[in-house]
């Protein structure tokens, strides 16, 4: 019984991802891109969840790890003979090295992890507001450096000639892998210690948990996942410095909060729900006709609706669509028996 319940925590989110990928594979090429995008969002949001959900500390800085991962994978995958055209100031070793798709993702994950570890060594001492502002500061600094330091990337230009290898299959496999790692972490003793500290910090300290060390581990792990997701991102769409900045920070946090901040299930549900809504509205901005009703929304409506939705969900259901709980059949049946 217990193992079945545990398995559901992992299999539920994975099933959702696979279902999204399957539906996506039956659609046209132009629609498929929305599904791939949604799956990459799942990876980013689950990476964010690994730290925020388990520790209860807000981070505005995770998109900097996504950015660093995107930069790493992007720079390493552009063919050597095309690098001088777009990135003429690169360091020599970056200019002369080009790796394949999978290695570029793994290096992106490693760089994201190392960066998060270094940042975390200093920042994880902080908590509350100071931590929030400090992670924000990390985002600002990362963005500022990537924007102007042309020895590590294209600077203000958009990445070009990065092989577009993130297809439906790769995005789905990537998302499942990220979910599996996040699941393994939250079931491990490290994850449990951190969750205990989230629920009751003094009690956790009293039983000998070093909150600093547990937070640092989660931060570094989520940096690895975020770097990996950044790699997937750069292999999907032409990325530039503004596409991995405030807007992405907002939308991924929105996904996590709307889904339910404290569960893996919530992270995945939130990412897919918001992506779905976002894509539908994006299509509606171009004009669609569902059920014979012609809808043609002005450009920009999308962000207004997502922002409004996030505010409404927060006011009506502050713990998110899933209530921040993992998927559980018991609860579903229980609710049917005794309607609350």
């Amino acid at each position, binding site marked *: 019984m217990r193992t079945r319940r545990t398995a559901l925590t992992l299999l539920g989110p994975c099933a959702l991802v696979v279902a999204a990928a399957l539906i996506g594979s039956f659609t046209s090429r132009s629609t498929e891109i929305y599904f791939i995008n949604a799956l990459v969002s799942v990876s980013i949001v689950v990476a964010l969840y690994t730290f925020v959900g388990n520790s209860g500390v807000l981070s505005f800085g995770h998109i900097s790890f996504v950015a660093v991962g995107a930069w790493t994978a992007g720079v390493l995958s552009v063919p050597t003979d095309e690098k001088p055209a777009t990135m003429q100031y690169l360091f020599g070793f970056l200019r002369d090295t080009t790796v394949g798709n999978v290695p570029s993702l793994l290096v992106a994950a490693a760089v994201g992890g190392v960066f998060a570890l270094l940042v975390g060594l200093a920042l994880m001492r902080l908590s509350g507001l100071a931590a929030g502002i*400090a992670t924000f500061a990390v985002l600002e600094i990362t963005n500022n450096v990537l*924007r102007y330091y042309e020895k590590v990337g294209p600077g203000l230009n958009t990445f070009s000639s990065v092989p577009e290898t993130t297809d439906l299959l790769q995005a789905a496999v990537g998302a499942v892998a990220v979910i599996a790692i996040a699941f393994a972490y939250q079931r491990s003793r490290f994850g449990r210690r951190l969750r205990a500290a989230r629920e009751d910090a003094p009690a956790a300290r009293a039983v000998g948990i070093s909150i600093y060390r547990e937070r640092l581990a989660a931060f570094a792990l989520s940096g690895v996942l975020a770097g990996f997701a950044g790699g997937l991102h750069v292999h999907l769409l032409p990325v530039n410095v503004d596409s991995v900045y405030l807007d992405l920070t907002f939308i991924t946090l*929105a996904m996590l909060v709307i889904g339910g901040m404290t569960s893996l299930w919530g992270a995945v549900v939130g990412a897919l729900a918001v992506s779905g809504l976002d894509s539908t509205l994006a299509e509606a901005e171009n004009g669609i006709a569902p059920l014979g009703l012609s809808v043609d929304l002005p450009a*920009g409506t999308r962000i207004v609706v997502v922002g409004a939705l996030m505010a409404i969900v*927060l006011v009506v259901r502050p713990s998110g669509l899933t209530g921040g709980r993992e998927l559980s059949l018991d609860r579903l049946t229980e609710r049917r028996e005794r309607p609350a």
Partner: protein
Amino acid sequence: MSAIVASGLTEFLGNAIEPQVQVDAVGQGAIFALMAVGIGLVFGVLRLVNFAYGQLVMAGAFALALASEWDWPVWAGIVLCFAVVLVLSIAMERLVFRPLRTQSPAVMLVATFAVAFLLQSIALLWFGSLGKTAASLAYLNRPVTVADVDIRKITIVAIVVAVISLAALVTLLTRTTVGLQMRAAAMDFRTARLLGVRANRVIGAAVLASGVLAAIVAVMLTVQSPLVTPNYALRETIVVLAGVVLGGMNRLGSATLGGFAIGYGSGLLGGALPTAQSQYLTSLLFGLVILVLLIRPAGLFTRGPLPVERV
């Protein structure tokens, strides 16, 4: 490498003691201090970091821009700006802050994040990304020369307005009943309520006062940078928030000082950094923020031991 740093540093220090740079930095500090007070007031009574504060300023700036587009007289534009900002602050409090009052600070912060992006995207939808120009007060941007230093009139206006507003606020907080109640609520909301302080009234007063400050900031910022875009004042808000936390959020005085310090600091860095390094201004500023937070997590201008994390 070290030689470059050394020469850059000498140049920076040489520029930094220029009266011109100093005056501009103080002017920026004054405006940032006002924003810091606006954010600190609401934080005091609600324990809520209002990330959407910059969007109030943005809305006020758009009101001014529209007024100047319609050729309204200056005073009418300012009245419109105040009206828009105040209505918006009250709506924000009613629709978002009030229902979330009992939630955790994280949820409230994310909620104001959502409101900020909502307002920003509404502005984008309404006015487009190119924005509008608020030109009616542009003459304040011209300089007057005092002892070989060119001082833009707005800098003087900003400093004077900031001093007057802060004095008025101190009077409000220390000499009126509602001010006393606001201070009591900031110290311990539950006890204050037990002693008969009306929560909604106090919060309403704080939100209104913070809205008035946002409108004042909107007027002064549009003089300095007349082109109003949907992400107007976003940068400033992020920097001020950092400054407020840096100064110490728990007291209005330290929050204000923090806002002034970061405004002054960024003005100084912006004015005095050699051009080759000035593009990394943001990194330098936020690097300093992280450093100060690590050394004094409770705030630069607070005294006494660290408060114990509440359970």
